[in-house]
């Protein structure tokens, strides 16, 4: 029972962090960033030395953890800001579909850039190996990593909430998410806020990369995609642009996947994802605006 709870929480954490990264950017510039998954993959590969061999040559991954973590977060933030400056700045006034396809094209470029440097074969890496030892809590044996995932996610969420509520920059960002043109008129610098959002979202991608990389122990060019899809769905179910909703929906999706894995009869288990997606459709039918509808996204006449 406890095992299920922790499984659900740790899977939900990943989805929640991913959804947050997407929701942050959507909030300030109405962009559904499909390149986010590839930023995650990039962060994992940043730990390796470029080579097309099957064996991974660990490069930055050998750093002690207190250097490793900031390094990966910075990689993510840096790449994300770079994407903003080089690409998304030119799409500020484009319609959402165009932005979406542009972000997809950008993700494509990042993915094949990685492919060129590292080849498409998945590589096994051991990232922070000490974390995979099991620990015993309340009679349940859990991998330490799972526990850390949950704790870290909680810490990130609390930190982010404090940041958004207590600092001036956070206030500006929330204002921009609420009503971008009004915020600009009141003196919020558009470029700064958007770049900040991209940096945060990139750092979140870095965090996911660390967690996911040490969980699976492989570096794969496609690895961002699966989390990305769920995160994307979570953002929409949560209410696009609503950060709290994104986190909530991320955890719900994680819980739904884990619970269905346990509850469904054995014959139906391979179809688990179909049931999860079915549930997604149901949620959307009853609450098309999302679980927690963001203010300011409602269309006015």
């Amino acid at each position, binding site marked *: 029972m406890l095992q299920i709870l922790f499984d659900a929480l740790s899977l939900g954490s990943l989805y929640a962090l991913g959804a947050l990264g997407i929701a942050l950017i959507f909030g300030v510039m109405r962009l559904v960033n499909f390149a986010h998954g590839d930023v995650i993959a990039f962060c994992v590969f940043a730990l390796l030395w470029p080579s097309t061999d099957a064996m991974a040559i660990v490069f930055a991954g050998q750093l002690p953890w207190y250097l490793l973590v900031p390094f990966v977060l910075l990689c993510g933030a840096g790449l994300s800001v770079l994407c903003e400056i080089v690409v998304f700045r030119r*799409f500020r006034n484009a*319609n959402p579909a165009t932005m979406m396809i542009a972000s997809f094209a950008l993700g494509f470029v990042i993915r094949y850039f990685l492919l060129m440097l590292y080849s498409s074969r998945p590589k096994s890496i051991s990232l922070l190996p000490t974390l995979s030892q099991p620990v015993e809590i309340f009679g349940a044996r859990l991998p330490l990593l799972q526990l850390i995932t949950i704790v870290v996610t909680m810490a990130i969420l609390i930190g982010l909430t404090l940041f958004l509520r207590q600092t001036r920059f956070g206030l500006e960002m929330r204002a921009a998410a609420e009503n971008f043109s009004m915020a600009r008129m009141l003196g919020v610098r558009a470029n700064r806020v958007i770049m900040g959002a991209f940096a945060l979202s990139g750092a979140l991608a870095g965090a996911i990369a660390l967690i996911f990389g040490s969980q699976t122990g492989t570096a794969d060019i496609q690895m961002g995609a699966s989390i990305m899809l769920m995160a994307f769905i979570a953002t929409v179910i949560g209410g696009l642009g609503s950060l709290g909703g994104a986190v909530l929906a991320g955890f719900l999706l994680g819980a739904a996947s884990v619970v269905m894995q346990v509850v469904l009869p054995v014959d139906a288990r391979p179809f688990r994802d179909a049931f999860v997606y079915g549930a997604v459709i149901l949620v*959307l039918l009853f609450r*098309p605006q999302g679980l927690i509808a963001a203010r300011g996204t409602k269309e006015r006449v």
Partner: protein
Amino acid sequence: MSAVVSETPLAGDVVAAKKPARFSLARRTIITPILLSLLLIAITLITVMTGSRPFNQTVIDVLVRVIFVVGLYIFIGNSGVLSFGHVGFACLGAYATAWLTINPIMKSSALPGLPEWLLQMRLPYWEAAVLAALFAGVAALIFGRVLMRLSGIAASIATFAVLAMINTIYSNWDSVTGGTSSVVGIPIIRTIWPYLIGAVVAVFIAWAHAISRSGLALRAARDEPIAASASGVDIPRERLVAFVVSGAVMGLGGALMAHSIGVVTPDTFYLSLTFTTLSMLVVGGMGSLSGGVIGVVLLSALIQALRWFEAGVPMGESTFALPKGLQEIALGIIMIVILALRPSGLMGNREVTLPRRNRG
């Protein structure tokens, strides 16, 4: 390229007026599908004249993609709702044609879960393709009844959920779909003509839908949803019509794709095909049938050119070859540049027509 066809005033025009106005609308706009078909026919004729087999296969791929993108346009272009799920209907169509055309002996060993009557059946490919389109259309009707109440990004995600559901089911229902392993034995059609006919039919279906009462009402709802529903447009219903028509066209495309490569797997019809076709539509111009067709032709030509460069082009003494992976990177960059320069796609909302002489 001078006339603006898809503008809302036309909708008011036609809904108010009686039949003759509709006929004149048809007469005024029919040049677009004719020109697009001529483009496709020209490409096909050039291919047939060169007689090169790999090139033949490439052009077949292009024609199949034209069907897909036109199918997407029927829903996305007219309703303005981005759909990520349409490739799912292509998947349904592809498997339907596999069920109908594979040799019964092979079928009963590879796909034992099929019902008896289907196991015994063996149809010629064109009948199977039409049935596959109908099957996909019916599936679209069922999903659409539920989904078309949604709009905006919620609808897009819901369609994506449909795609993911179809993919999960088809990847795991081993006895009927063969699971993730590929279904082989579908008769391969190597002549180019059926694909050309399919593409031209798709273009004409899209045109007929666009100038139908339903299509006009839907475009009015895309541009001014509130005004349209105030004027009595039942938006979910018109969306459903477009969804079903486009689902059927996707099914046709899926069936023809299955016949062009001879194997189907669920993952052929998943994210990468979704994004390829969507990109082609958006780069060409989401709101325009011509944009869709031109997007496919241009991007396919680009992909092909980059592939040639990747394979190596003899330049004087040495061969000039791009490193592997650069093809995709270049494609991505070119797409970004096109979209940055022309945010509403190459064609925007316009259609290709002949310059009009007598206005009014």
